């Protein structure tokens, strides 16, 4: 057995086994999609494809749980396509998810902007169009401010959560595909994230960390797959780290005095709620200083990188529509709101 502090059986079976456990544990919410093309990699809400609504499909590599799978359920996503660890799913399951979630109004694919995901989901969308005449639109999440100067080239990280929630709530109103796409785009356009990592996640098949980060070092701006960030240095105080993270976030949109925001302070896995709340304290102080109003805040593990130590801050600038969609009730295994 590997030296990493993880629990699994054959590392090459970990995704299959976790999915088996997942659909068993959360059977009131979801089931495995039984289409052959789904290849056991599509999980859908129990009522997917039966309601008069746009099918909301999210997905990407495994290892970010509760993202993506945890947000399939009422008022959120209808289906999720699951890849190997840190790896986009393949085209057939992407295709199958559209088949399973469509009910005549078309489907939206929502996922973080990574080349692999784009290739595979696009192939799935083509197939859905060609073989079943299902209209599939895609909105890529691009919230990671430091991943590129050019917004469409940016990665999607914890901001996924806001974009998916908004799209899920919009679809739930019975809106048509264009409207759902517009809401998702609006959410993405108004969302910015930046993170810091203090350790690497571990890969079961490698039996080791993905990359070396010496004890006591942190990497500002690191991606949730361990993609290198913008600066490596010694782990600093929470306040200094938050100061450093908040600056590019605020400057980027920019967020300005009078804005109202939804805040997400996200754990990448091993960073405890205690530390996240120490971080949130500083985030709230900075926003107050700048005259930016916090509408609501979420603090916890939303978009992780398995056992990585680290966190990210996401801000979404709100208008009335976004507030309403964020506040809409939903019920999924990992996010329920009255």
């Amino acid at each position, binding site marked *: 057995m590997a030296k990493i502090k993880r629990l699994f059986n054959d590392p090459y079976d970990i995704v299959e086994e976790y999915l088996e456990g997942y659909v068993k544990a959360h059977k009131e919410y979801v089931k495995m999609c039984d289409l052959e093309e789904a290849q056991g990699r599509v999980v859908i809400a129990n009522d997917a494809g039966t309601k008069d609504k746009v099918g909301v499909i999210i997905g990407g590599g495994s290892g970010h749980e509760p993202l993506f799978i945890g947000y399939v359920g009422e008022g959120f996503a209808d289906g999720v396509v699951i890849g190997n660890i840190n790896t986009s799913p393949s085209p057939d399951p992407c295709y199958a998810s559209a088949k399973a979630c469509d009910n005549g109004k078309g489907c939206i694919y929502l996922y973080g902007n990574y080349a692999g995901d784009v290739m595979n989901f696009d192939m799935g969308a083509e197939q859905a169009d060609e073989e079943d005449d299902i209209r599939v639109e895609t909105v890529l999440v691009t919230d990671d401010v430091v991943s590129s100067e050019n917004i469409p080239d940016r990665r999607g990280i914890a901001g996924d959560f806001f974009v998916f929630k908004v799209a899920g709530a919009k679809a739930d109103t019975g809106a048509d595909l264009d409207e759902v796409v517009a809401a998702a785009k609006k959410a993405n356009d108004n969302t910015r994230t930046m993170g810091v990592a203090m350790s690497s996640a571990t890969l079961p098949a490698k039996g080791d960390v993905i*990359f070396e980060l010496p004890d006591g070092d942190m990497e500002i701006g690191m991606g949730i797959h361990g993609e290198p960030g913008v600066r490596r240095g010694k782990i600093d105080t929470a306040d200094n780290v938050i100061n450093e993270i908040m600056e590019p976030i605020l400057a980027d949109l920019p967020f300005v005095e009078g804005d109202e925001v939804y805040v997400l302070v996200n754990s990448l896995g091993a960073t405890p709620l205690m530390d996240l709340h120490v971080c949130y304290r500083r985030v709230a102080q900075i926003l107050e200083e700048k005259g930016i109003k916090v509408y609501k805040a979420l603090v916890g593990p939303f978009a992780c990188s398995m056992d990585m130590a680290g966190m990210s801050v996401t801000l979404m600038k709100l208008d009335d529509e976004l507030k309403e969609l964020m506040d809409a009730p939903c019920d999924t295994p990992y996010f329920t709101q009255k």
Partner: protein
Amino acid sequence: MSDYILSKDYFVKVIEDLIALVDKRKEYYTELDSAIGDGDHGINLEIGFREVNKHLDEWKELNVRDLYNHVGKALLDKVGGSSGPLYGSFFMKFGLPIKSKGPDEGATFEEFIQMMDKGIAIIQKRGKSTTGEKTMLDTFIPALEKLRSEYEAGTPGKEAMEKAVEAGKDGLESTRNIVATKGRAMRLGERAIGHLDPGAASAAEFLEVFYNDMP
């Protein structure tokens, strides 16, 4: 020139040797990907070629075209990520140029060049990319060009392939000193300099297998 025939056995052997290669070199590919990507290239290939290995005994009864199509589909289905659709499509398209379809038939060397061309073309199409972007195409495209030009200039098949492998290796080496404009590494900018591209590295060793197994 077209008397240099690559037998069915050759094409089977290549797959067997790719399975062995990936198993042997997965840590190396993963290490390269750790530096500038997400540290899974070797694992991705291993997942794909393990699946191929499970079915190879069955598939090797098929003709080359179908055998390679199955290999490609297995990579496409089981791997995902970037290398899944890229290598997957490469193998799926690879067998198409073979005209003769018997289960025991091989291909002429001319067909072999067309096969490489077909496979590499689909990578370009899927990846919307070309050389100089720090990807596997920095290996594949110069290798293919060399293969074609040498063969057209009369160099015997195996020797042409040897030159192609060398050109691929030079291409791989060229990825060390450029920034990436495709794939995960593109977000790294200057920090990618000094590191080989993992996909370019696996591609160079894949080509070597195609060369070594030639009679």
